[in-house]
Protein backbone atom coordinates (compact mmCIF):
# COMPACT_ATOMS: atom_id res chain seq x y z
CA UNK A 1 0.00 0.00 0.00
CA UNK A 2 1.24 3.45 -0.86
CA UNK A 3 1.86 5.39 2.34
CA UNK A 4 3.23 8.58 0.76
CA UNK A 5 0.00 10.50 1.31
CA UNK A 6 -0.59 9.34 4.89
CA UNK A 7 3.02 10.16 5.74
CA UNK A 8 2.57 13.64 4.26
CA UNK A 9 -0.62 14.23 6.27
CA UNK A 10 0.90 12.85 9.50
CA UNK A 11 3.89 15.10 9.18
CA UNK A 12 2.02 18.31 8.47
CA UNK A 13 -0.77 17.69 10.99
CA UNK A 14 1.52 16.19 13.66
CA UNK A 15 -0.97 13.34 14.12
CA UNK A 16 -0.66 9.56 13.79
CA UNK A 17 -3.71 8.62 11.78
CA UNK A 18 -2.78 4.91 11.86
CA UNK A 19 -3.98 4.96 15.48
CA UNK A 20 -7.57 5.42 14.34
CA UNK A 21 -9.62 2.25 14.88
CA UNK A 22 -12.75 3.73 13.33
CA UNK A 23 -14.95 3.82 16.39
CA UNK A 24 -16.90 6.60 14.64
CA UNK A 25 -17.01 8.80 17.73
CA UNK A 26 -15.65 11.83 15.83
CA UNK A 27 -18.30 11.48 13.15
CA UNK A 28 -21.07 10.99 15.70
CA UNK A 29 -20.26 14.36 17.28
CA UNK A 30 -19.38 16.25 14.10
CA UNK A 31 -21.94 19.02 13.55
CA UNK A 32 -21.53 18.97 9.78
CA UNK A 33 -21.16 15.23 9.09
CA UNK A 34 -24.59 15.26 7.38
CA UNK A 35 -23.28 17.81 4.89
CA UNK A 36 -20.17 15.75 4.17
CA UNK A 37 -19.53 13.18 1.46
CA UNK A 38 -17.45 10.92 3.76
CA UNK A 39 -17.36 12.38 7.26
CA UNK A 40 -14.33 12.63 9.57
CA UNK A 41 -13.51 8.96 10.25
CA UNK A 42 -13.92 7.86 6.63
CA UNK A 43 -11.67 10.71 5.55
CA UNK A 44 -9.04 9.18 7.84
CA UNK A 45 -9.68 5.72 6.35
CA UNK A 46 -9.21 7.08 2.84
CA UNK A 47 -5.93 8.70 3.89
CA UNK A 48 -4.81 5.39 5.38
CA UNK A 49 -5.60 3.80 2.02
CA UNK A 50 -3.64 6.43 0.10
CA UNK A 51 -6.69 7.84 -1.69
CA UNK A 52 -5.30 11.34 -2.12
CA UNK A 53 -7.42 12.41 -5.07
CA UNK A 54 -10.67 11.27 -3.47
CA UNK A 55 -9.89 13.09 -0.21
CA UNK A 56 -8.64 16.35 -1.69
CA UNK A 57 -11.23 16.29 -4.46
CA UNK A 58 -14.03 16.05 -1.91
CA UNK A 59 -15.75 19.09 -0.41
CA UNK A 60 -15.42 17.61 3.09
CA UNK A 61 -12.18 19.40 3.93
CA UNK A 62 -13.86 22.78 3.32
CA UNK A 63 -17.17 21.84 4.96
CA UNK A 64 -15.38 21.08 8.24
CA UNK A 65 -16.25 23.94 10.61
CA UNK A 66 -13.05 23.57 12.71
CA UNK A 67 -15.17 23.11 15.81
CA UNK A 68 -12.59 20.77 17.41
CA UNK A 69 -15.28 18.43 18.78
CA UNK A 70 -13.59 15.44 17.13
CA UNK A 71 -10.22 16.39 18.61
CA UNK A 72 -11.73 16.70 22.08
CA UNK A 73 -13.45 13.31 22.05
CA UNK A 74 -11.21 10.89 20.14
CA UNK A 75 -10.20 7.98 22.42
CA UNK A 76 -6.86 7.79 20.59
CA UNK A 77 -6.13 11.50 20.88
CA UNK A 78 -6.16 12.05 17.14
CA UNK A 79 -7.12 15.57 16.12
CA UNK A 80 -9.14 15.19 12.94
CA UNK A 81 -9.42 18.99 13.08
CA UNK A 82 -5.64 19.23 12.69
CA UNK A 83 -5.80 16.66 9.88
CA UNK A 84 -8.44 18.80 8.13
CA UNK A 85 -6.17 21.87 8.44
CA UNK A 86 -3.31 19.90 6.91
CA UNK A 87 -5.51 18.61 4.06
CA UNK A 88 -6.65 22.15 3.25
CA UNK A 89 -3.06 23.37 3.23
CA UNK A 90 -2.02 20.53 0.89
CA UNK A 91 -5.02 21.10 -1.35
CA UNK A 92 -4.19 24.80 -1.72
CA UNK A 93 -0.45 24.32 -2.12
CA UNK A 94 -0.94 21.64 -4.79
CA UNK A 95 -3.80 23.39 -6.52
CA UNK A 96 -6.53 20.75 -6.23
CA UNK A 97 -9.91 21.54 -7.78
CA UNK A 98 -12.74 21.39 -5.25
CA UNK A 99 -16.54 21.35 -5.30
CA UNK A 100 -16.39 24.01 -2.54
CA UNK A 101 -14.30 26.75 -4.22
CA UNK A 102 -15.72 29.63 -2.12
CA UNK A 103 -13.85 28.64 1.04
CA UNK A 104 -10.30 28.62 -0.38
CA UNK A 105 -11.09 31.81 -2.30
CA UNK A 106 -12.22 33.44 0.94
CA UNK A 107 -9.13 32.37 2.89
CA UNK A 108 -6.76 33.58 0.15
CA UNK A 109 -8.49 36.93 0.09
CA UNK A 110 -8.57 37.24 3.88
CA UNK A 111 -4.84 36.58 4.17
CA UNK A 112 -4.16 38.89 1.23
CA UNK A 113 -5.79 41.74 3.16
CA UNK A 114 -3.96 40.92 6.39
CA UNK A 115 -0.69 40.74 4.43
CA UNK A 116 -1.39 44.20 3.07
CA UNK A 117 -2.75 46.09 6.10
CA UNK A 118 -1.80 43.91 9.07
CA UNK A 119 -5.45 43.80 10.12
CA UNK A 120 -8.73 42.72 8.59
CA UNK A 121 -10.74 45.23 6.60
CA UNK A 122 -14.25 43.82 6.29
CA UNK A 123 -15.45 46.21 3.59
CA UNK A 124 -12.64 45.19 1.21
CA UNK A 125 -13.08 41.54 2.12
CA UNK A 126 -16.81 41.52 1.43
CA UNK A 127 -16.55 43.50 -1.78
CA UNK A 128 -13.80 41.44 -3.40
CA UNK A 129 -15.29 38.17 -2.13
CA UNK A 130 -18.64 39.04 -3.69
CA UNK A 131 -16.99 39.88 -7.00
CA UNK A 132 -14.91 36.71 -6.96
CA UNK A 133 -17.77 34.37 -6.10
CA UNK A 134 -20.28 36.35 -8.22
CA UNK A 135 -22.69 36.47 -5.28
CA UNK A 136 -23.20 40.19 -5.45
CA UNK A 137 -26.49 40.40 -3.63
CA UNK A 138 -25.84 37.78 -0.94
CA UNK A 139 -26.21 39.02 2.64
CA UNK A 140 -26.98 42.60 1.66
CA UNK A 141 -29.82 42.50 4.19
CA UNK A 142 -27.28 42.31 7.00
CA UNK A 143 -24.29 43.99 5.30
CA UNK A 144 -26.03 47.31 4.69
CA UNK A 145 -27.41 47.67 8.25
CA UNK A 146 -23.92 46.87 9.59
CA UNK A 147 -22.44 49.69 7.52
CA UNK A 148 -25.23 52.07 8.59
CA UNK A 149 -24.74 51.14 12.23
CA UNK A 150 -21.09 52.11 11.91
CA UNK A 151 -19.83 48.57 12.43
CA UNK A 152 -17.88 48.24 9.20
CA UNK A 153 -15.26 50.98 8.74
CA UNK A 154 -14.99 52.22 5.17
CA UNK A 155 -11.24 52.86 5.30
CA UNK A 156 -8.71 50.23 6.34
CA UNK A 157 -6.36 50.70 9.28
CA UNK A 158 -2.73 49.97 8.47
CA UNK A 159 -0.45 48.54 11.14
CA UNK A 160 2.75 50.59 11.65
CA UNK A 161 4.91 47.49 11.89
CA UNK A 162 3.96 46.28 8.42
CA UNK A 163 7.58 45.30 7.74
CA UNK A 164 7.27 42.83 10.65
CA UNK A 165 3.97 41.46 9.35
CA UNK A 166 5.37 41.12 5.82
CA UNK A 167 8.42 39.36 7.21
CA UNK A 168 6.17 36.81 8.96
CA UNK A 169 4.31 36.10 5.72
CA UNK A 170 7.60 35.73 3.84
CA UNK A 171 9.29 33.54 6.45
CA UNK A 172 6.31 31.16 6.72
CA UNK A 173 6.14 30.69 2.96
CA UNK A 174 2.77 32.34 2.39
Amino acid at each position, binding site marked *: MDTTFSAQVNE*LSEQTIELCYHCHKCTAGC*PVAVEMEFGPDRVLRLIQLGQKDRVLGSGDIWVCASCETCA*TRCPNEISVAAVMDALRAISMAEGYATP*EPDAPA*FHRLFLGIVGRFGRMHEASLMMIYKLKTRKLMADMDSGIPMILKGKIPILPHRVRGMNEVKRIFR*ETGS
Partner: protein
Amino acid sequence: MKLNYYPGCSATSTGQELDLSVRAVLAALGVELQELEDWSCCGASSAHATNRALAVALPARNLAIAQRSGLDLLAPCAACYSRLKTADYVMRHDATKKGEVEAQVAFEFTGSYQVRSPIDVVVRDIGLDAVRSRVLKPLAGLKAVGYYGCLLVRPPEVVAFDDPEHPVMLDQILGALGMEVCRWSYATDCCGGGLNLTKSSVAVRLVGRLTQFAREAGADAIVTACPLCQMSLEMRQTGNGSRMPVVYFTELMGLAFGLKETSGWWKKHLVDPRPWLGALAAGGA
Protein backbone atom coordinates in the same frame (compact mmCIF):
# COMPACT_ATOMS: atom_id res chain seq x y z
CA MET B 1 -5.68 44.97 38.35
CA LYS B 2 -4.08 45.91 35.04
CA LEU B 3 -4.13 43.87 31.83
CA ASN B 4 -2.79 44.01 28.32
CA TYR B 5 -5.73 44.25 25.94
CA TYR B 6 -6.01 42.78 22.42
CA PRO B 7 -9.29 44.00 20.87
CA GLY B 8 -8.87 42.13 17.56
CA CYS B 9 -10.45 42.84 14.17
CA SER B 10 -13.93 41.39 14.77
CA ALA B 11 -14.57 43.02 18.12
CA THR B 12 -13.64 46.40 16.66
CA SER B 13 -15.94 46.06 13.63
CA THR B 14 -18.85 43.66 13.23
CA GLY B 15 -18.62 42.71 16.91
CA GLN B 16 -18.12 46.21 18.35
CA GLU B 17 -20.64 45.74 21.14
CA LEU B 18 -18.21 43.23 22.64
CA ASP B 19 -15.18 45.55 22.71
CA LEU B 20 -17.25 48.51 23.94
CA SER B 21 -18.96 46.55 26.69
CA VAL B 22 -15.81 44.74 27.87
CA ARG B 23 -14.00 48.07 28.24
CA ALA B 24 -16.91 49.71 30.08
CA VAL B 25 -17.65 46.80 32.40
CA LEU B 26 -14.05 46.11 33.37
CA ALA B 27 -13.51 49.82 34.05
CA ALA B 28 -16.55 49.73 36.33
CA LEU B 29 -14.97 46.80 38.16
CA GLY B 30 -11.68 48.61 38.58
CA VAL B 31 -9.65 46.76 35.94
CA GLU B 32 -7.33 48.90 33.87
CA LEU B 33 -6.81 47.83 30.24
CA GLN B 34 -3.73 48.78 28.28
CA GLU B 35 -4.37 48.30 24.56
CA LEU B 36 -1.58 46.34 22.90
CA GLU B 37 0.43 48.84 20.91
CA ASP B 38 0.16 48.38 17.14
CA TRP B 39 -1.46 44.96 17.46
CA SER B 40 -2.01 42.97 14.25
CA CYS B 41 -4.54 40.36 13.11
CA CYS B 42 -4.29 36.94 14.78
CA GLY B 43 -4.76 35.24 11.39
CA ALA B 44 -8.21 33.92 12.34
CA SER B 45 -9.58 30.79 10.68
CA SER B 46 -7.97 31.67 7.38
CA ALA B 47 -4.41 31.22 8.63
CA HIS B 48 -4.99 28.00 10.54
CA ALA B 49 -7.15 26.52 7.79
CA THR B 50 -4.42 26.96 5.23
CA ASN B 51 -0.91 27.47 6.66
CA ARG B 52 0.05 26.03 10.03
CA ALA B 53 3.27 28.02 10.38
CA LEU B 54 1.56 31.34 9.63
CA ALA B 55 -1.23 30.37 12.07
CA VAL B 56 1.29 30.45 14.92
CA ALA B 57 3.62 33.21 13.74
CA LEU B 58 0.90 35.85 13.13
CA PRO B 59 -0.51 35.72 16.68
CA ALA B 60 3.05 35.37 18.05
CA ARG B 61 3.81 38.93 16.92
CA ASN B 62 1.17 40.06 19.42
CA LEU B 63 2.59 37.82 22.14
CA ALA B 64 5.94 39.50 21.52
CA ILE B 65 4.34 42.91 22.15
CA ALA B 66 2.49 41.63 25.23
CA GLN B 67 5.55 40.26 26.94
CA ARG B 68 7.27 43.67 26.85
CA SER B 69 5.05 44.80 29.70
CA GLY B 70 4.57 41.32 31.15
CA LEU B 71 0.91 41.96 31.97
CA ASP B 72 -1.59 39.17 31.26
CA LEU B 73 -3.11 39.50 27.80
CA LEU B 74 -6.90 39.78 27.66
CA ALA B 75 -8.55 38.83 24.35
CA PRO B 76 -12.33 39.46 24.41
CA CYS B 77 -12.96 37.74 21.05
CA ALA B 78 -13.17 33.96 21.47
CA ALA B 79 -11.54 33.38 18.07
CA CYS B 80 -8.57 35.67 18.78
CA TYR B 81 -8.29 34.12 22.24
CA SER B 82 -8.13 30.67 20.67
CA ARG B 83 -5.45 31.69 18.13
CA LEU B 84 -3.33 33.57 20.68
CA LYS B 85 -3.66 30.75 23.18
CA THR B 86 -2.71 28.14 20.57
CA ALA B 87 0.41 30.10 19.59
CA ASP B 88 1.25 30.53 23.27
CA TYR B 89 0.79 26.78 23.83
CA VAL B 90 3.15 25.94 20.95
CA MET B 91 5.78 28.33 22.33
CA ARG B 92 5.58 26.72 25.76
CA HIS B 93 5.42 23.08 24.69
CA ASP B 94 7.35 22.62 21.45
CA ALA B 95 10.99 23.65 21.64
CA THR B 96 11.68 23.13 17.93
CA LYS B 97 8.70 25.18 16.79
CA LYS B 98 9.47 27.82 19.37
CA GLY B 99 12.87 28.31 17.77
CA GLU B 100 11.33 28.55 14.29
CA VAL B 101 8.70 31.07 15.37
CA GLU B 102 11.28 33.18 17.22
CA ALA B 103 13.25 33.39 13.97
CA GLN B 104 10.17 34.19 11.86
CA VAL B 105 8.91 36.90 14.20
CA ALA B 106 12.35 38.07 15.37
CA PHE B 107 11.83 37.95 19.14
CA GLU B 108 12.77 35.85 22.12
CA PHE B 109 9.89 34.20 23.95
CA THR B 110 9.90 34.60 27.71
CA GLY B 111 6.27 33.72 28.44
CA SER B 112 6.07 36.32 31.20
CA TYR B 113 2.29 36.64 30.86
CA GLN B 114 -0.81 34.47 30.31
CA VAL B 115 -3.45 34.77 27.57
CA ARG B 116 -6.85 35.26 29.23
CA SER B 117 -10.53 35.38 28.33
CA PRO B 118 -12.96 37.82 29.98
CA ILE B 119 -15.20 35.08 31.47
CA ASP B 120 -12.16 33.63 33.22
CA VAL B 121 -10.98 37.03 34.49
CA VAL B 122 -14.44 37.97 35.77
CA VAL B 123 -14.97 34.72 37.67
CA ARG B 124 -11.43 33.92 38.87
CA ASP B 125 -9.79 37.32 39.38
CA ILE B 126 -12.64 39.71 40.04
CA GLY B 127 -14.98 37.18 41.62
CA LEU B 128 -18.73 36.70 41.54
CA ASP B 129 -19.19 38.47 44.88
CA ALA B 130 -17.60 41.63 43.50
CA VAL B 131 -19.91 41.36 40.46
CA ARG B 132 -22.95 40.88 42.70
CA SER B 133 -22.09 43.85 44.84
CA ARG B 134 -21.76 46.08 41.76
CA VAL B 135 -25.27 45.21 40.49
CA LEU B 136 -27.62 48.19 40.77
CA LYS B 137 -30.43 46.80 38.72
CA PRO B 138 -30.85 43.00 38.99
CA LEU B 139 -31.91 41.43 35.69
CA ALA B 140 -34.77 39.48 37.25
CA GLY B 141 -37.33 38.30 34.72
CA LEU B 142 -34.92 38.02 31.80
CA LYS B 143 -34.74 34.43 30.60
CA ALA B 144 -31.82 33.27 28.49
CA VAL B 145 -29.37 30.46 27.83
CA GLY B 146 -25.61 30.85 28.11
CA TYR B 147 -23.81 29.85 24.92
CA TYR B 148 -20.05 29.17 24.78
CA GLY B 149 -19.61 27.88 21.25
CA CYS B 150 -16.43 26.02 20.28
CA LEU B 151 -13.44 28.23 20.68
CA LEU B 152 -13.46 28.89 24.42
CA VAL B 153 -13.57 25.20 25.32
CA ARG B 154 -11.85 23.20 22.57
CA PRO B 155 -9.27 21.78 22.32
CA PRO B 156 -9.39 21.71 26.13
CA GLU B 157 -5.67 21.14 26.78
CA VAL B 158 -4.94 24.40 24.96
CA VAL B 159 -7.78 26.83 25.60
CA ALA B 160 -10.18 25.64 28.29
CA PHE B 161 -10.51 27.47 31.61
CA ASP B 162 -13.87 25.80 32.25
CA ASP B 163 -15.19 22.25 31.77
CA PRO B 164 -15.07 21.53 27.99
CA GLU B 165 -18.30 19.49 27.82
CA HIS B 166 -20.26 21.16 30.61
CA PRO B 167 -18.94 24.67 31.24
CA VAL B 168 -20.60 26.68 34.03
CA MET B 169 -18.79 29.98 34.49
CA LEU B 170 -20.84 31.99 32.00
CA ASP B 171 -24.08 30.84 33.66
CA GLN B 172 -22.62 31.76 37.05
CA ILE B 173 -21.98 35.32 35.88
CA LEU B 174 -25.52 35.63 34.49
CA GLY B 175 -26.87 34.23 37.75
CA ALA B 176 -24.90 36.85 39.69
CA LEU B 177 -26.70 39.51 37.63
CA GLY B 178 -30.02 38.13 38.86
CA MET B 179 -31.05 36.56 35.57
CA GLU B 180 -33.05 33.43 35.11
CA VAL B 181 -30.56 31.15 33.36
CA CYS B 182 -32.30 28.33 31.48
CA ARG B 183 -30.66 24.91 31.43
CA TRP B 184 -29.89 23.34 28.09
CA SER B 185 -27.43 20.83 26.66
CA TYR B 186 -26.13 22.80 23.69
CA ALA B 187 -23.85 25.44 25.22
CA THR B 188 -20.82 24.08 23.39
CA ASP B 189 -22.46 22.92 20.13
CA CYS B 190 -21.05 24.59 17.02
CA CYS B 191 -23.08 27.43 15.42
CA GLY B 192 -21.25 27.14 12.09
CA GLY B 193 -19.82 30.65 12.53
CA GLY B 194 -16.61 29.65 10.77
CA LEU B 195 -18.66 28.84 7.66
CA ASN B 196 -20.94 31.87 7.98
CA LEU B 197 -19.70 33.44 4.75
CA THR B 198 -18.27 30.48 2.82
CA LYS B 199 -21.10 27.96 3.30
CA SER B 200 -23.97 29.81 4.86
CA SER B 201 -26.46 26.95 4.40
CA VAL B 202 -24.61 25.05 7.14
CA ALA B 203 -24.74 28.06 9.46
CA VAL B 204 -28.48 28.40 8.78
CA ARG B 205 -29.09 24.78 9.79
CA LEU B 206 -26.94 24.91 12.93
CA VAL B 207 -28.31 28.28 14.05
CA GLY B 208 -31.84 26.99 13.48
CA ARG B 209 -31.18 24.05 15.81
CA LEU B 210 -29.65 26.25 18.50
CA THR B 211 -32.46 28.80 18.55
CA GLN B 212 -35.04 26.02 18.58
CA PHE B 213 -33.33 24.28 21.52
CA ALA B 214 -32.99 27.61 23.33
CA ARG B 215 -36.73 28.23 22.94
CA GLU B 216 -37.52 24.71 24.13
CA ALA B 217 -35.42 25.41 27.22
CA GLY B 218 -37.67 28.40 27.93
CA ALA B 219 -35.21 31.09 26.89
CA ASP B 220 -36.07 34.31 25.05
CA ALA B 221 -32.48 35.16 24.17
CA ILE B 222 -29.02 33.68 23.75
CA VAL B 223 -26.07 35.11 25.66
CA THR B 224 -22.64 34.61 24.15
CA ALA B 225 -19.00 35.64 24.52
CA CYS B 226 -17.90 35.20 20.90
CA PRO B 227 -18.34 37.79 18.10
CA LEU B 228 -18.35 35.13 15.37
CA CYS B 229 -21.12 33.19 17.11
CA GLN B 230 -22.97 36.42 17.81
CA MET B 231 -22.90 37.51 14.17
CA SER B 232 -23.76 34.07 12.83
CA LEU B 233 -26.62 33.61 15.34
CA GLU B 234 -28.13 36.99 14.45
CA MET B 235 -27.57 36.78 10.68
CA ARG B 236 -28.58 33.19 10.05
CA GLN B 237 -31.98 33.01 11.75
CA THR B 238 -34.51 32.40 9.03
CA GLY B 239 -38.26 31.95 8.84
CA ASN B 240 -41.08 34.35 9.49
CA GLY B 241 -41.17 34.22 13.27
CA SER B 242 -39.50 36.92 15.31
CA ARG B 243 -35.76 36.54 15.59
CA MET B 244 -34.21 35.79 18.94
CA PRO B 245 -31.89 38.44 20.39
CA VAL B 246 -28.25 37.41 20.80
CA VAL B 247 -26.26 39.55 23.22
CA TYR B 248 -22.84 39.52 24.87
CA PHE B 249 -22.65 38.71 28.58
CA THR B 250 -20.69 41.90 29.11
CA GLU B 251 -23.57 43.97 27.68
CA LEU B 252 -25.86 42.46 30.31
CA MET B 253 -23.28 43.16 33.00
CA GLY B 254 -23.29 46.80 31.86
CA LEU B 255 -27.08 46.88 32.03
CA ALA B 256 -27.16 45.39 35.54
CA PHE B 257 -24.42 47.80 36.65
CA GLY B 258 -26.58 50.68 35.41
CA LEU B 259 -23.97 51.93 32.94
CA LYS B 260 -25.33 54.66 30.72
CA GLU B 261 -23.45 53.44 27.62
CA THR B 262 -25.66 50.35 27.24
CA SER B 263 -28.30 52.02 25.06
CA GLY B 264 -25.64 52.71 22.41
CA TRP B 265 -24.78 49.00 22.27
CA TRP B 266 -28.34 47.75 21.74
CA LYS B 267 -28.71 50.01 18.69
CA LYS B 268 -25.84 48.25 16.96
CA HIS B 269 -27.51 44.84 16.94
CA LEU B 270 -29.06 43.33 13.81
CA VAL B 271 -31.75 41.82 16.05
CA ASP B 272 -32.84 44.57 18.42
CA PRO B 273 -32.70 43.20 22.00
CA ARG B 274 -34.76 46.10 23.43
CA PRO B 275 -38.18 44.42 23.18
CA TRP B 276 -36.75 41.50 25.17
CA LEU B 277 -35.11 43.81 27.70
CA GLY B 278 -38.53 45.44 28.12
CA ALA B 279 -39.37 42.36 30.20
CA LEU B 280 -37.26 43.95 32.94
CA ALA B 281 -39.62 45.46 35.48
CA ALA B 282 -37.82 48.80 35.55
CA GLY B 283 -37.50 48.96 31.74
CA GLY B 284 -33.73 48.88 31.47
CA ALA B 285 -33.47 49.58 27.75
